[in-house]
């Protein structure tokens, strides 16, 4: 009787050990599956965001001048967007928030004035080219051929 109880206790202990091992294995498998699902979900979400942004950019330029100005606009938007990331992080930390806001403002003012200047120049050149193309060729001045000779 005593021996039977002992054997039963050993069997139950063994079963518990095996069950603990199995639960641990299943927990690891669940965590791995969660990681795979998260990665897949985020990959698709990033891809969709990328495609939407590209479509929005593609729809920017309509008129001829807009098309000429488009590279500057894209560079400007990209610069703003990329620069905003570290600023946003630093602005969310109380210790660096105040200083960062001032630096961010100065950065934006300088960057925008530079881009405005580039944009203005590009538009000016585009206007000159357009006017040059629209103006009919001048008839030769009388006597010009004799002067040249």
């Amino acid at each position, binding site marked *: 009787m*005593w021996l039977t109880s002992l054997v039963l206790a050993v069997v139950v202990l063994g079963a518990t050990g095996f069950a603990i091992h199995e639960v641990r294995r299943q927990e690891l498998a669940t965590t791995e599956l969660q990681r795979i699902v*998260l990665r897949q979900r985020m990959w698709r979400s990033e891809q969709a965001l990328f495609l939407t942004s590209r479509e929005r950019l593609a729809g920017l330029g309509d008129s001829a001048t807009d098309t000429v100005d488009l590279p500057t606009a894209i560079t400007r938007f990209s610069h703003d967007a990329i620069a905003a990331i570290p600023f946003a992080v630093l602005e969310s930390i109380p210790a660096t928030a105040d200083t960062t806001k001032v630096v961010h403002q100065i950065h934006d003012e300088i960057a925008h004035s530079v881009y405005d200047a580039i944009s203005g120049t590009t538009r000016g050149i585009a206007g000159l080219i357009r006017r040059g193309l629209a103006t009919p060729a001048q008839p030769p001045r009388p006597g010009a051929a004799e002067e040249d000779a």
Partner: protein
Amino acid sequence: MQIAVLIVVIVNLGVLALLGRRMLVLDSKQRALRIELAQLGPAEAMPAPLDKAFLAGRKRMLTVEILNPLELATLHNRLAGVAGAVAPNAVRAVVYEQAAKITRDQLAKQSVEADVQVHVAD
């Protein structure tokens, strides 16, 4: 003696029941995740130039190496000092697991979807 064995058997049966329940929960979670994965399907193929632009650049990862795990453990728990003297590796493992958990929680608060894992170097 027989009473002691009986108590061991009863306690073990209780533990087994709890473990069985945990297995059922895990199984149902895994089934739900597999369904979600099947619904997500493979990522849609993009036109080649877009795909190239999207995948441009090298993969980046953020690594964190805790340089004072034993000190950290001692700061939070006095007994960890003793444990650190006997089994420093175990204390380091616990500190890294805790750090990973805190990082996960903090990143989630900042809307960062991150796969935070502890890598054990050779």
